[in-house]
């Protein structure tokens, strides 16, 4: 048997790890996109919504933020199954993480909208713009700039949180790494490799956010 070095093991595990990266990326993409859309709605309801609806969203946001993500994952995977609704682990994970991230995104959107000075909305009213027009042309473009930094943070958090899906057997990057480690017990080396891969993925997101932020830098008060 050829000598087992880190590099031969890495070569052996290349497809497993690449597949892990693909799953992690796909999961993160679904979660970020879904939570951005839902968070936008949630944020709008929090700021402008009908009182009872706003209270419901607030309750949702607070509860979600107080529960460990792991429990949310178990709930969506097994909790629903108790009622005979069986969703695959991957989608249970997407729903759990997106539900959690939506709470954060709603808060972020609310904060951003409220940070736009009241005078802006009044000036928009004064020239006769309707509610949706004010939102579309005046409020949201300005809120976008405030949203970006915390949005990037949440996106990065979600990429990191996909690691928790290993518990329900989604073979994302961490579980793929652990499977490799279970075979060769090169613990530190492979965790380092995984760290590097996560870092690259997240750093790319951070840079993208910084790039967008710079594009909006002309908006000053």
């Amino acid at each position, binding site marked *: 048997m050829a000598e087992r070095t880190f590099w031969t093991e890495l070569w052996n595990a290349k497809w497993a790890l690449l597949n892990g990266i693909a799953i992690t990326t796909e999961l993160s993409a679904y979660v970020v996109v879904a939570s951005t859309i839902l968070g936008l709605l949630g944020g709008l309801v929090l700021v402008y919504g009908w009182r009872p609806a706003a209270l419901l969203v607030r309750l949702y946001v607070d509860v979600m933020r107080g529960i460990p993500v792991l429990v949310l994952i178990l709930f969506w995977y097994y909790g629903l199954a108790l009622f005979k609704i069986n969703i695959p682990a991957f989608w249970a994970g997407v729903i759990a993480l997106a539900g959690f991230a939506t709470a954060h995104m709603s808060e972020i959107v609310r904060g951003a909208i409220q940070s736009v*000075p009241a005078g802006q909305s009044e000036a928009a*009213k*004064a020239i006769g713009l*309707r509610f949706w027009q004010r939102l579309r042309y005046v409020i949201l473009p300005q809120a976008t700039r405030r949203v970006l930094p915390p949005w990037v943070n949440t996106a990065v958090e979600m990429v990191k949180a996909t690691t928790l899906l290993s518990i329900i057997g989604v073979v994302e990057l961490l579980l793929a790494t652990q499977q490799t480690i279970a075979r060769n017990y090169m613990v530190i080396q492979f965790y380092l490799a995984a760290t590097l891969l996560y870092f690259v993925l997240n750093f790319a997101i951070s840079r993208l956010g910084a790039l967008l932020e710079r594009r909006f830098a002309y908006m000053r008060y």
Partner: protein
Amino acid sequence: MQNHMKPNATSAATGAMPLLRAVDVHKSYDRLEVLKGISMDVEQGEVLALIGASGSGKTTFLRCINLLEEFQQGEIDLDGEPIGYRMTGGRRRKIPEAALSAQRARIGMVFQSFNLFPHMTAEQNVMLGLTKVRGKPAAEARDIARHWLERVGLAERRGHYPFQLSGGQQQRVAIARAVAMEPRLVLFDEVTSALDPELVAEVLGVMQDLARSGMTMIVVSHEMLFVREVASRVVFMDGGHVVAQGPPQELFRDPESERLRSFLGRFHGVFS
């Protein structure tokens, strides 16, 4: 001192319908009553100055006219049509948002802090209402915007963002944005504070220009010299009431009201 509960004499004499008529407007924040029954008429083409101590309710009244605040009692009519509220089945109801927007579009407002949209150039600031509210095609809106920016002396600054403009320039963009909509009435809230005398003179020039072209305006200001120059009539508010009104020369030379005399204080007598 005139009775502030009745519309003033001007319109009563001519019999013509005033452009704006406020009757007994009351407005409270929670339990604090800020406007305690304001009535006034503004004629087409008039430049009305609102003066009064800080907290007397001037800004609040302007905001009621532009429907940025709700008021609890009284009526404000623009061109004879009640604004903001309608009586249906004996109850006073707020009109729906779409109708509110249409009414607001007929009134322009220039804010004390300008409130230009920071993500748009001067030109885009002026164009927004023209395209989205008036529904004009972009090309036409751009022409109108350029025309007005030129008129306020900002032709070469039209591509600048607000943060690239000085206070006086931002002020003038705000004026152009309000008047380009061809409103029936323009409200100015303390447009001259924080401007130096030269810029005050500049803004004054623009406003006198507008007045000559027949624009109706209500102007809130603390600068009595400016008021004297620009206003055709002055209304003095105190504690949520209209306490005195009249042409500036008369009012300043010989204030009937004790309160107005003390308000004008050491400046009184300057207006010879």
